[in-house]
């Protein structure tokens, strides 16, 4: 018995391609717990009985373990922490699992009015930036504040640093501007609309696509009209106020009245409820505090005392990552809007702190650069000497010196840019890392995984690696394949701190398919040397991460066609690598080739220059057919390039024995037929039967090998 139900509290959450929620600006993970089911009142929510919860500093995000391909149900839904009234814990009894019970605040009617306002506007207004005319600080007015402003112009915002009130004319103009922009964008011509063009691979997707069809990158389609927006599965979830009713189904209930709208239960089937409960309490307090701060309602009229202590439990480790986190939250406290001289002071001190950090970093790099520069100068001096000795025109030398000088400068600039970039990316990754660290430390180890780490941690790591692969576009750069070794170094280099171990990576990558990600791990037996017997090399394996649709068989067929196009000369691995389609790791090609050899479809020519691979003409060659053809046919002229006809026995030139030596050829034919009759161990019959046996054995073993190779 199921019945439809809709809740005002659950909101859509947009998920990244790896199934992790996309967090709002300034939002960060606090804790992740899996094995959670949802209840509305006393009734189960259908399809939301197995999933994981992300507690962030703004929301509780629930992501169900539904099949990611089914679009019928939303996988990710979230609760706003600000709408939570109170929570209690239930420790479970007998068969009922422990639960965290959340009581929601009743939603005020006014909110729905605002809802109507937004829909009547039929546009999706953006935040409005206004520049203070006194201190030129660029302030932001949030969308809901804009709505309020339109109702009541007395609520004009104040500058966040110097406290001056904005002027009404300026704000009105800005609002009008943003609206016209939005309405312009509301009409969409599907042909010219470029919002659905993927930023990574430039593929133009259908406007209603959420992820890029080609590479899986999340599409930013800001300019979609509201009607399309709905199809696009909640692109509007960045707007806190805009609500969309999510269709849910609850289990077994008789009348609508019996469902308590305000009570939502999280059932913890895998435990972890107390931890979650404590963190949730902290997060709710913190979020309401932050909300008050942003509304300027904290300590109104009271003297400000700086507090850098943060609630316990959020920060435990002394890692660099944690320090950065601390600095960030510190700066958040500093950035709390205060008015007047204090505000300006705080703002400027924060700015100087940031720049000093940056400066420190760049100074180090500068030192490195200087040492390099010295080497460069040495080089240029020796270069100069050579030029002088050759007594060429001095002008040229001057030009060269100037060029060197210029390049030195440009290197300096480039270096600065690079360090700035790295700084910002690592800064944004810190949140991800700390979330992972908490998972790693917080749970009992799991014997199922090779690294012995909790499976929840591995799953989360797996999702992050998937995102990393897609964001950095690594697979497309490498023809859709990457060895685990390469991925390991790339990923750890990108992380910078808290490097993961190879076992962790292996565990994370091997569950790609289990998590329903668009990636998979391929195992190929690694055969370094073709001369070794095959059984000896079975224990060595090469691991390759690839997209799901790519299979090693498709690569081998491509390779086979490539080789058959070059059947006269054959190809070495290096030559294969230089082809466009095979621009991949040497080991991978080597392994595929060795598998093809084991399969018997190609053969090798070992020469001084190395190994060259050919289509297996040897296996195709049929001596009996060749002899028959030769004895039957006339005296053809010789074919100087016989390999062109290889594999096509009927077109082969045939040869006869001596001219006019009829007796001779007769005497050949006679014993031949005689031998075949008595079935003696003549070589023709032996070879024929041998060939048949071989063929049988060959086919059978080839089938077996194909089965083994069939890792698709």
């Amino acid at each position, binding site marked *: 018995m199921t019945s439809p139900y809709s809740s005002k509290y659950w909101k859509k959450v947009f998920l990244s391609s790896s199934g992790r929620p996309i967090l709002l600006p300034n939002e960060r993970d606090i804790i992740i717990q899996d094995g959670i089911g949802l209840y509305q009142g006393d009734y189960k929510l259908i399809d939301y009985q197995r999933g994981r919860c992300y507690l962030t500093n703004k929301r509780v995000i629930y992501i169900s373990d539904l099949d990611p391909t089914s679009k019928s149900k939303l996988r990710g839904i979230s609760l706003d922490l600000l709408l939570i009234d109170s929570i209690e814990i239930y420790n479970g009894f007998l068969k009922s699992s422990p639960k965290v019970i959340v009581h929601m605040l009743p939603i005020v009617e006014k909110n729905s009015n605002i809802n109507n306002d937004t829909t009547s506007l039929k546009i999706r207004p953006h935040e409005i930036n206004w520049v203070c005319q006194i201190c030129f600080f660029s302030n932001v007015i949030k969308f809901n504040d804009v709505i309020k402003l339109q109702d009541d112009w007395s609520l004009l915002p104040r500058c966040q640093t110097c406290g001056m009130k904005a002027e009404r004319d300026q704000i009105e103009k800005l609002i009008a501007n943003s609206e016209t922009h939005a309405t312009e964008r509301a009409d969409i011509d599907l042909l010219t609309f470029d919002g659905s063009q993927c930023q990574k691979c430039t593929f133009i997707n259908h406007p209603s696509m959420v992820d890029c069809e080609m590479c899986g990158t999340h599409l930013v389609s800001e300019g979609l009209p509201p009607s399309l927006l709905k199809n696009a599965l909640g692109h509007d979830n960045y707007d806190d106020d805009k609500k969309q009713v999510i269709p849910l189904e609850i289990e077994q209930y008789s009348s609508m009245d019996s469902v308590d709208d305000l009570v939502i239960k999280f059932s913890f089937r895998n435990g972890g409820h107390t931890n979650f409960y404590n963190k949730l309490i902290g997060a709710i307090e913190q979020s309401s505090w932050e909300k008050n701060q942003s509304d300027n309602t904290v300590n109104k009229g009271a003297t400000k005392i700086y507090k850098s202590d943060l609630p316990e439990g959020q920060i435990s480790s002394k890692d660099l990552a944690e320090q950065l986190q601390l600095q960030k939250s510190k700066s958040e406290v500093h950035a709390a809007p205060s008015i007047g001289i204090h505000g300006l002071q705080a703002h400027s001190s924060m700015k100087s702190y940031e720049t000093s950090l940056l400066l420190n970093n760049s100074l180090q790099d500068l030192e490195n650069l200087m040492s390099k520069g010295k080497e460069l100068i040495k080089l240029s001096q020796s270069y100069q000497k050579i030029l002088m000795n050759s007594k060429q025109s001095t002008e040229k030398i001057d030009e060269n010196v100037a060029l060197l000088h210029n390049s030195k400068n440009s290197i300096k600039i480039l270096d600065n840019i690079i360090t700035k970039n790295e700084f910002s990316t690592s800064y944004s990754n810190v949140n991800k890392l700390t979330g992972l660290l908490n998972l790693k430390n917080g749970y009992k180890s799991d014997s199922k995984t090779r690294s012995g780490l909790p499976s929840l941690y591995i799953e989360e790591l797996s999702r992050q690696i998937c995102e990393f692969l897609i964001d950095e576009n690594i697979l497309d750069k490498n023809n859709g394949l990457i060895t685990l070794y390469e991925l390991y170094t790339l990923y750890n280099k990108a992380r910078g701190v808290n490097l993961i171990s190879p076992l962790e990576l292996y565990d994370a990558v091997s569950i790609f398919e289990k998590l329903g990600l668009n990636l998979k791990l391929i195992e190929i037996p690694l055969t370094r040397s073709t001369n070794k017997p095959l059984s000896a090399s079975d224990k060595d394996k090469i691991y390759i991460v690839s997209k799901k649709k790519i299979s090693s068989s498709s690569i081998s067929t491509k390779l086979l066609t490539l080789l058959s196009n070059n059947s006269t000369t054959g190809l070495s691995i290096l030559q294969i690598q230089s082809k466009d389609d095979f621009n991949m790791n040497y080991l991978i090609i080597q392994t595929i080739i060795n598998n093809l050899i084991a399969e018997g479809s190609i*053969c090798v020519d070992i020469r001084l220059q190395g190994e060259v691979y050919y289509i297996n003409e040897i296996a195709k*060659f049929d001596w009996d057919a060749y002899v028959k053809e030769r004895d039957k046919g006339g005296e053809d002229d010789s074919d100087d390039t016989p390999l062109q006809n290889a594999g096509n026995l009927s077109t082969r030139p045939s040869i006869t024995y001596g001219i006019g030596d009829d007796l001779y050829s007769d005497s050949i034919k006679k*014993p031949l037929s005689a031998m075949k009759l008595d079935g003696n161990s003549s070589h023709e019959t032996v070879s024929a039967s041998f060939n048949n046996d071989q063929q049988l054995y060959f086919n059978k073993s080839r089938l077996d090998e194909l089965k083994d190779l069939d890792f698709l």
Partner: protein
Amino acid sequence: MSSNTFKYPTIYNFPPFFTKQPNLQTFQIQLQIWQDLILDYCKFYKIWSLSINGQPNTTTTSITDDDDDGEEDVDNDDIDIDVDISKNSIFKNDKIERYAKSDFILDIINHMIKNGKCEWIDANNHKFGLFIYWYTLEEWADKLYDWIDNTGQNNTVLTLYEIRKSELTENQEFNNINLNLLIKILEILVKLNKALILKDDSGSIVGVKFS
């Protein structure tokens, strides 16, 4: 193109043919093709024995041959050879600059010995080379006896030279047959009671009488 030159099959110009293939099935097929090729080649040029390098053997007679020393040279001259095959090895293809390595050659030879297609002239000393049996000894014996039968030479005594070199056998396949090989064949006929080997006092063969 002269028909006096052996026409190699297309596979002979395929470079991997000269490399021992790592795939076992392919390798077996490769060995078989090599065997067929060698037999065909030797049959075409009437090469009775090959050295281990794949060259036609000229030293085999040194073991027991009591013919005059110039015998083998005459043998070689009798074969109408346009190309100087005595210096060409079957295991070496100059056209594509490939040759089979010695361990691979040994594999081929062992494969042929297993199939009864060749035999070491001296099992203890491989440098003497191999007899190549494009027909097995039994087949040779049949051929020889058929010829005797068809020409009505039963109960006549023939010298070995007559069988090998005389005008009588000019059109027979065993014309110019290697002496040691002929003795082996005759020994088989003796066992079948179809021939009698006549020896002189010193024990060397002087003639054979077919029954």
